[in-house]
């Protein structure tokens, strides 16, 4: 594990809509070190996809506005980069896998065409010109690495001819074929059957390990994040509320939201299901002042509505944004 690869500092993103301004991201702090696998866990509407899109700079800019913060990639601010620099970054350093492979794969081209395009593009960018045979070999190798049976035949197939699991494997193959440094995986296995999900996550784990890549794994599943990541960030309503080493954090969640989430997850031990967390995610037009979770929090104090809490240290690596753990009470 090396130095910092990605460092999001105090990111604020809003969306302009008819009713006003949706203040979605409210000062997101997130960092990823070289070779690390970091989880970003949150429920629908918490802003995780907005965060990913901000990193890739693919937010639709008329409704979206980045109103503050920086996204540092190896000492350079992604938000300040020129178009050319950003394209180069996307080509060589960043890669992404999304939830629905049918949307990521072009239905009218064969897998081979799409994969070759990606390989050629990345190689040319790095100043190498690959022969056709070399490109083909690279594609087959990428497919084989993800555990696809019969890669040569797959190259001639169209996406609709394949199952969901195979399509997602192809997306992962595409993502890893560029030898990128940072992979953003946005709910990559949510739509898949559980046995297939297991296979794919293991494969992804192994491949990432082999290449020494870093991963930001975005998911709403605590179980997936527990298996796949070394560190995890819990996100609520546009803020990271808790961050720390995955297993330790899940065993001992400190933030009331994290505690509520962990209690809500049905467990094999069979103790019944908790009633969930009362209330709803806030309205981003008029979000709660201070800590955005405070209206739903069973431990709400007066300080919580005044100002959003900073991170307080539980241990060196485990931090919580909650006044229960620091600050004047």
């Amino acid at each position, binding site marked *: 594990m090396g130095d910092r690869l990605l460092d999001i500092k105090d990111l604020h993103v809003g*969306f302009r809509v*008819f*009713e006003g301004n949706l203040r979605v991201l409210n000062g997101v702090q997130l960092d990823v070190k070289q070779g690390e696998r970091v989880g970003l866990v949150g429920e629908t509407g918490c802003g995780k996809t907005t965060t990913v899109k901000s990193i890739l700079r693919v937010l639709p800019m008329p409704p979206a506005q980045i109103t503050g913060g920086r996204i540092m990639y190896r000492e350079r601010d992604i938000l300040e980069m020129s178009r050319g620099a950003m394209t180069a970054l996307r080509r060589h350093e960043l890669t992404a896998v999304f939830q629905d492979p049918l949307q990521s794969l072009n239905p009218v081209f064969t897998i081979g065409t799409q994969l070759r395009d990606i390989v050629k593009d990345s190689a040319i960018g790095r100043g190498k010109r690959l022969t056709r045979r070399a490109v083909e070999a690279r594609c087959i190798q990428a497919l084989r690495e993800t555990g696809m049976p019969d890669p040569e035949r797959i190259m001639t197939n169209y996406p609709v001819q394949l199952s969901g699991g195979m399509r997602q494997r192809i997306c992962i193959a595409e993502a890893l074929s560029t030898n990128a440094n940072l992979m953003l995986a946005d709910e990559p296995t949510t739509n898949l059957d559980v046995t297939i999900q297991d296979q794919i996550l293991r494969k992804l784990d192994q491949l990432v390990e082999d290449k020494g890549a870093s991963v930001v794994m975005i998911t709403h599943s605590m179980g997936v994040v527990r298996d796949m990541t070394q560190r995890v960030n819990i996100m609520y309503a546009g803020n990271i509320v808790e961050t720390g080493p995955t297993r330790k954090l899940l065993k001992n969640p400190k933030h009331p939201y994290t505690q509520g989430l962990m209690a809500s997850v049905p467990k094999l031990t069979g103790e019944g299901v908790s009633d969930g967390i009362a209330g709803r995610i806030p309205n981003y037009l008029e979000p709660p002042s201070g800590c955005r979770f405070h209206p739903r929090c069973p431990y709400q104090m007066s300080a919580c509505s005044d100002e959003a809490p900073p991170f307080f240290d539980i241990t060196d690596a485990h931090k919580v944004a909650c006044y229960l753990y620091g600050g004047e009470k």
Partner: protein
Amino acid sequence: MEGEERLGDLRATLIQKRHGLARGWYKFSRNRLSVLGLIVLLIITMAAILAPYITPYPGHAKAYTNFQDAGKPPSLEHFFGTDRVGRDIFSRVIFGYRFSLTIGIVVLALGVAPGVILGLVTGYHQGTWIETVGMRITDIFLAVPPLVLALAITAMLTPNLMNQMMAIALVWWPWYSRLVFALASSLRNEYFVREAELTGASTLHIMFKEILPNCLAPVLTKMTLDMGIVILLGATLSFIGLGVQPPKPGLGTMVAEGAKRLPGEWWGTIFPALAIVVVILAFNLVGDGLRDVFAVEEV
């Protein structure tokens, strides 16, 4: 109390509708051209309604001759000039808009409802003989070019405004049938329709209360865009003499009369033709804007 209950219902619905309208306007107004189109339409409509009061020479819209003033080019007294029998073209154009707008409204009123109903019925019964019969009838009407069919019908009957409108309506309904068929047949697989079926709701209920409300947006957009085409079709029929008859100031009729005098007395044809273009363009712009209003936004 039941009365109070209904009032509560009504109030809640009105509040929602008002909010919906406000949001709709916001989306519409982001498109400047559509707003321009709307303004133009409003002006034209007001002008057409108030024609007898605002045109400089309202009498010229009827049988009127004044050969002394015939063939005069555009001037301050006659904005669009005069035609070969001395009538003020500007006033006649404004009156001409009355015919155009009437044609548009009546044709759509006559043609849309049957088309929509047929579309609903065939769409819901997709895969059965009802669909086959209904869609084949639709196909037959669609197979004949609209102009030709309208021509044939008006030629059979006496050429006048009413028959012209009926002819176009007869040609127009199949497009709505097809549109609603496509919408209804995909909607029928939605869970909420399934649920209504499983509960035991009647077919009428499902078609009109569950499916139809979800079809209205595309139908409204199409109606707006169609106004322009219907007006054009009406003008075309008048142009070839099968629609509004002289001396009535139909826009197409005026274009035909003025055409004989081209290129010398160009104002006789060009201004009525431009008037047609403007109204069609306005409807198209508004229709485009409506499409944006109904499009589902994703954030």
